[in-house]
């Protein structure tokens, strides 16, 4: 009876305090599970690999031609950008050598060991605080936002995925995936769509908004309220549909955004870890 009483109290503790109570047993369970679940998750990912979802359909041939021209122009632009960045990188390296230290980022690539149940799915990874990973670090893969670190132990960590509840996703919509948000664009807040069990997000846009199907949602937290600076520009998803908003169908549209990777089936993720010198 005493155990039941203690567990009942523990069940109703505030989240911050409950997290401290559960830290040590959770760390032990994660540490013990990682060797086996890494192998099993790898096996399950190889049997059912994550799919990269196709881009939204463009209907007309003229639009396809326009897309091709835009893609060719983008490739040329990226080539110029690549040369410019190479020069900039050389300059930064020289600056770093002259000044000794600077804030920079490094990327920690890690394998995914397992995942947890919805409605707040997480990924377990086999690297933790010993590798510089801290709560709040951003997880991404191939430029696409995966989530943020929710829990760390010395050797393991948990990533809260972007399709968990209570995740804030301020975004800007850009027509192509390579565009970097400039800060002057209109910012939208994505809401998790509970009607399809968190597979998509939606944003309310004006009827006369230039946003169209196929636009890409880039994370852009202007004042770094929910996401750090290094997360700006990471892709949250792509607009797959625009429908009248059920709450105000005559004035507002609802843009449906779907992540282009299957978040829970990932085999590896990259973690952006700021260096603090």
């Amino acid at each position: 009876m005493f155990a039941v009483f203690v567990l009942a109290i523990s069940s109703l503790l505030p989240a911050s305090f409950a997290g401290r109570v559960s830290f040590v047993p959770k760390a032990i369970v994660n540490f013990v599970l990682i060797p086996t679940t890494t192998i099993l998750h790898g096996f399950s990912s190889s049997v059912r690999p994550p799919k990269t979802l196709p881009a939204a359909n463009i209907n007309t041939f003229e639009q396809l031609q326009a897309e091709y021209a835009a893609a060719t122009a983008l490739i040329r632009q990226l080539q110029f950008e690549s040369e410019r960045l190479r020069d900039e990188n050389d300059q930064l390296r020289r600056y770093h050598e002259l000044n000794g230290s600077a804030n920079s980022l490094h990327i920690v690539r890690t394998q995914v060991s397992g995942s947890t149940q919805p409605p707040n799915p997480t990924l377990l990874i086999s690297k933790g605080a010993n590798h510089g990973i801290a709560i709040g670090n951003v997880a991404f893969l191939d430029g696409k936002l995966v989530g943020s670190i929710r829990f760390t132990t010395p050797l393991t960590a948990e990533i809260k995925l972007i399709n968990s509840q209570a995740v804030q996703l301020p975004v800007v919509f850009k027509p192509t995936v390579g565009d970097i948000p400039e800060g002057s664009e209109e910012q939208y807040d994505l809401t998790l769509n509970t009607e399809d069990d968190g597979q998509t997000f939606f944003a309310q846009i004006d009827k006369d908004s230039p946003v169209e199907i196929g636009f890409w949602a880039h994370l852009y937290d202007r004042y770094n309220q929910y996401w750090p600076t290094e997360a700006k520009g990471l892709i949250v998803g792509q607009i797959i549909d625009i429908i009248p908003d059920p709450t105000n169908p005559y004035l507002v549209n609802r843009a449906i955004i779907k992540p282009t990777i299957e978040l829970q089936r990932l085999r590896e993720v990259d973690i952006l870890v700021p260096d603090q010198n």
Partner: protein
Amino acid sequence: MNWVIFAIIAYLFLAMQVGLRTLIALPESFGGMAPSLLLILGVYICLTARSHIALWAMLALGLTTDLITTLNPDSTIIGPAAIGYLLAGFTILQMRGLVFKESVFTLALLTFAAGVFACITITAFYKLRTIPWLAGDASDNWDTANQLYRYFMMVLYTTALAFPLGFILYKITPIFRFHEKKTY
């Protein structure tokens, strides 16, 4: 009961539940949850071990389930699944005198009953947490009906898996070294 064997089997079931989740989980339209293999093990222990051992085993399995549950987006809450599993274990102990204990059909049916009790208890605690003067979790992040639906589908799926897993567990019963006296 041999607690070392129990720990090893529980570890294997837990590793399969977490590691193979993306392979064995239901589609999103059916809730997207993986079956609870620890629940099957717990019901099996309740059917075959002595009462106090069964309740301690259910408590351990419930605590482990709490540690891998992320119903609260910000932290891990210890208690709801532990109490749910204890309640389920107590229910099984009341019913086991009325059933054929060595049957996988019994195991599957009691897994369903135990799952329903456990999941209702877990959902009730997380709903209680949204009361402002208790834990005060954000209530707009919690949809009770949706969560009950997810859990119900998970329990059905777990019941189906109880047949093959129960068959395996009954085959390896001798290694658990249960010493329960049969009473009729």
